[in-house]
């Protein structure tokens, strides 16, 4: 394992070499069979967000190239396929006061105040106030340097979604990392203005969406082996929207949260697949076995960076603010005594770094999978196993840090201290899926289930503030084309619904004196989606209503849209993305975790010298795990218009 700052540059060179080989091959006239197939599109996606204004003006060019070769030796159907994408999001230039180099401002942080003697015996009273960043009380551990961390270019954490309401908050730097490097986590969330404007043109060469060589090796017994090597998307599972088995490629949520087609937001990875396609056997209508090896160095999901329009769970904002706290210090609202804005010097609380696991072309650190898939008596099925790295980050406490209440620089681990590294633990997944048709109700059902071992979650009951839990996730999908005459007399309406469940088998939660403590994620949570899609004008006009309800978050998203295929080349899509319901939720924020006993103990700690959480909480930071991606986007209602020209 290595920290991101030292990540290898070898592999991008390899990818470039792959491009060169592909281009050379496609220009050759001696070894090719058939023409090179070239297609693509240009697209503009313009989104307007309530209370913000322009939130996206993404201009995309995508080129798809495929070249078939003659049969080579024992191989047949040999081809190279490439997908290349370049994007320019003009929002960072056209709305730079919200998302660009002028984003953010000076901020005031809430201090609900404390009566005299409440903070410690003999302490003065602290009146309610709004305290500027850098204006909190200073404790013996020292203050931070306002010159290095000025009150400018900041946004109060979570303030676009909820009031601080007695909880914690701090400033989150908003500007791109080349403009303001505060809170930028090297190699993980460190996008410059150009990285945000042109997201594919980075050191991982993301403009190469896909580039792979595919070959088939027919066998004498009638079966065949299929091999595919290169950067690609490997899709497992049978359901839409939910990623129960579709977890091979990480996902770029910064593009449009959870609302874009997965094809467009899966982050292609360098993968080798070998697939035995047995076809019909004496028992199975179709039987196949796939092996895969991800040889490209691990990449996590892209959660979006603080100061950008799409920051799923607002995690990127929290991480950026926390990294700023670690590197530069910060003022935290309502911290001391649960009511006084407090200044923290660097290296006390925050996020130190992100540790990305894995290596390029590593056998020992690589990610592997196997899938058996087929059809048995008309029922499609798969059995899946995958050894991979968790694509969502986990914050592991227990890193060496300083005591806020002593002038010395200790740099030792403190239990229950909110000082973290970001890690991505190794996970093992076992799963399966089936699909089948039930004739009496004219319905297709799709079922996926996955059981994982090794995932880690926030947990204020544990000294390092995380713990491992086995997880079961499942989704049941239902499709039924149904004639609804008042919508269309001659074309069926597609009704498609899904229910998703997630169960943390090692969930820990308890009731502390001041509130619930433990794991903020729901032990059992359920989401439901419903799609109603209608077609008119020979399928060239298609209105649809997509909705999703998160039971734990108690939040509903409704996305009505109309898709109009103007010609074979032009397509216009317009719609809304509207959220309703509860939105932000509260959970213990670990202010009362007593990491520096006895200084941080409270009257409800049974032993002031023993650290541990007693449950004082607020919206930030752990409430986001209860709100989920829909709830945390509660205030991100949008009008979305996309026009595409295909060629």
């Amino acid at each position: 394992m290595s920290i991101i700052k030292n990540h290898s540059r070898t592999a991008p060179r390899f990818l470039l070499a792959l491009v060169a080989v592909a281009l050379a091959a496609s220009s050759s006239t001696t070894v090719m069979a058939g023409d090179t197939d070239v297609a693509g599109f240009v697209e503009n996606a313009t989104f307007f967000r309530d209370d913000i204004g322009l939130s996206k003006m993404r201009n995309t060019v995508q080129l798809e190239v495929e070249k078939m070769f003659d049969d080579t030796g024992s191989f047949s159907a040999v081809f190279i396929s490439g997908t290349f994408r370049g994007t320019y999001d003009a929002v960072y230039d056209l709305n730079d006061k919200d998302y660009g180099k002028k984003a953010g401002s000076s901020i005031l942080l809430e201090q609900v105040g404390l009566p005299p003697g409440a903070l410690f015996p003999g302490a003065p009273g602290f009146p309610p106030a709004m305290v500027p960043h850098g204006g909190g009380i200073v404790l013996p551990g020292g203050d931070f340097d306002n010159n290095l961390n000025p009150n400018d270019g900041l946004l109060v954490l979570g303030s676009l979604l909820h009031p601080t309401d007695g909880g914690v908050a701090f400033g989150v730097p908003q500007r791109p990392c080349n403009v303001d490097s505060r809170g930028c986590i090297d190699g993980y969330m460190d996008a410059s203005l150009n990285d945000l404007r042109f997201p594919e043109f980075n050191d991982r060469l993301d403009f190469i969406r896909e580039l792979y060589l595919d070959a088939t090796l027919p066998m004498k017994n009638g079966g065949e082996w299929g091999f595919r090597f290169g950067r690609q998307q490997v899709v497992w599972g049978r359901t839409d929207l939910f990623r129960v088995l579709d977890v091979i490629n990480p996902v770029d949520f910064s593009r449009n949260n959870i609302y874009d087609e997965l094809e467009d937001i899966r982050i292609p990875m360098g993968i080798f697949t070998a697939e035995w396609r047995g076809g019909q056997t004496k028992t199975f209508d179709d039987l196949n076995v796939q092996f895969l090896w991800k040889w490209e160095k691990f990449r996590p999901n892209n959660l979006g960076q603080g100061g950008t329009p799409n920051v799923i769970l607002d995690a990127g904002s929290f991480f950026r603010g926390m990294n700023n706290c670690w590197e530069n210090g910060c003022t935290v609202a309502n911290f001391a005594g649960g009511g006084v804005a407090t200044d923290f010097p660097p290296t006390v609380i925050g996020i130190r770094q992100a540790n990305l696991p894995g290596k390029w072309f590593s056998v020992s650190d690589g990610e592997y999978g196997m899938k058996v898939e087929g059809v048995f008596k008309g029922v499609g099925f798969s059995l899946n196993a995958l050894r991979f790295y968790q694509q969502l980050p986990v914050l592991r406490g227990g890193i060496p840090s300083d005591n806020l209440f002593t002038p010395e620089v200790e740099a030792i681990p403190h239990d229950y201290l909110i000082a973290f590294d970001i890690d991505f633990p190794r996970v093992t997944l076992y799963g399966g899926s089936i699909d089948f048709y039930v004739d009496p109700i004219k319905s297709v059902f799709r079922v996926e289930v996955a059981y994982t071992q090794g995932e880690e979650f926030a947990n204020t009951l544990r000294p390092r503030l995380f713990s491992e839990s086995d997880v079961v996730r499942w989704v049941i999908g239902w499709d039924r084309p149904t004639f609804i005459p008042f919508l269309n007399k001659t074309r069926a309406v597609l009704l498609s619904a899904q229910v998703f469940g997630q169960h943390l088998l090692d969930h820990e939660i308890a009731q502390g004196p001041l509130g619930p403590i433990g794991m903020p994620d729901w032990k059992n949570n359920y989401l439901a989606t419903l799609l109603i899609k209608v077609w008119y004008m020979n399928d060239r006009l298609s209105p649809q209503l997509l909705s999703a309800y998160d039971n734990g978050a108690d939040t509903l998203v409704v996305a009505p849209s109309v898709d109009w295929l103007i010609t074979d080349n032009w397509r216009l899509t317009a719609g809304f993305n509207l959220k309703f319901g509860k939105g932000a939720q509260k959970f213990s924020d670990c202010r009362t975790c007593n990491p520096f006993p006895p200084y941080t103990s409270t009257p409800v700690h049974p032993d002031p010298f023993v650290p541990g959480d007693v449950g004082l909480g607020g919206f930030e930071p752990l409430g986001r795990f209860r709100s989920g991606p829909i709830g945390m986007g509660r205030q991100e209602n949008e009008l979305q218009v996309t026009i595409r020209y295909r060629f």
Partner: protein
Amino acid sequence: MKLLTKNMLAAALLASMGTAMAADPAVVEKSFFPYKDGAPVVEGLTPGVVLTAENVDQFQDAVDPALLQQIKDGWVDITIGETTDFALHPNYISATEAGNATLGATAGEIQNFVAGRPFPQEPDINDPRAGEKLAWNYQYGYNWGDNAAIYPFYWRYRKLETGKIERQIKFNFHFLNWKHRVNQEPVPEFANNPSGLFRSIYVQVLEPFDVKNTQLLIHRYEDDLKRDDAWLYLGFQRRVRRLASGQVTDAFLGSDLMIEDFEGYNGRISDMNWTYKGTRNVILPFYNHNDQALTSEYKDPDGYEFIDFHGKGGCYPNVTWQVRKAYVLESSSVDPNHPISKRVHYVDAQTFTLPRTIIYDRKGDPWKSWTICQANPEHHLAKNKGSGVSIDDCFSMIDVQAKHCTTGQFKGQVDPKLNPTSLFTVQNLRAKGR
């Protein structure tokens, strides 16, 4: 040598049937060669005559009612060609001679069927199950033989009133019979076929971009009472999606066809009530491809030229039609919620293809006029010569209510190399998917 091989296959097929009774050779002869003693005669309807709004009334008994109305309305003029023999493959005929199929107790059940035409006897209007027998003859017909491909296949969505082409889709279609094979090894069926598939259809969309990589796979079971399985691969989802049966009676990719319309009727025998309504001599679109007005607009790399379209909206194939013997077969859905109340098929008596079908909506009003052109294989691609397959060569589905049509232009190829069994697996959808 080739003939010898075919005869050996036929002999092997016969032997495989053990002691079963054979069909009457005279009956088989009459079924497969209805024009042996001469073509049907309709007075005045001779080769070269053009049916127009002005003269069609005098030939109304030889024109199906939907087409008759369209000619009367001036939507299209039809040129009559010479009635020609479309002899099916000798192995199929031999298999018919060796056959002794009978109907089961309920619709959708057939017994003792191995290969060939199950019921070569002339239908009897007094036989309450005559329609069902005709339907079986179509279902187990030599339509595309043991396997074939339409490679490529161009569909156009057109406005009937203006002729505006709204959309053009380029496909490849592939067909494979798992059972009842007569010509290509293995005969009569594949060994590994655990679920008892009868036939598979695989469809791949090549253009345009928004539906590129869409693929469709249909498995029809030998047990007609078992529901077809169908899967769709959607390129933008990169996922195989099982289709509900409702989707086979829905507009396919927005066209005027439903999956159930493919080849004239693409469903189970047991899904319909079949009624034989009589035998007529009517005009049907049978011809020699190479003698027609062709178009080279698709720039086929082999120089192949496709059937051209003309008439109102460009919705009609520009081909000659023949006077042919046809069985009028009516099918109405068992399912009361089916979007179609009935179809009236004009079954070509020699080939048991469905070149003309009139489709009625749920209210019983005429809805669609369905034409599938049939080309003689001896006047088509070189590889199709000797195939004994009546080549589906073009189609026109006219929605007379919506004033819209979908036309299809085929490059039909009877070529087993284009249709390996691996193409007809669910996994192939994923492997081919991009």
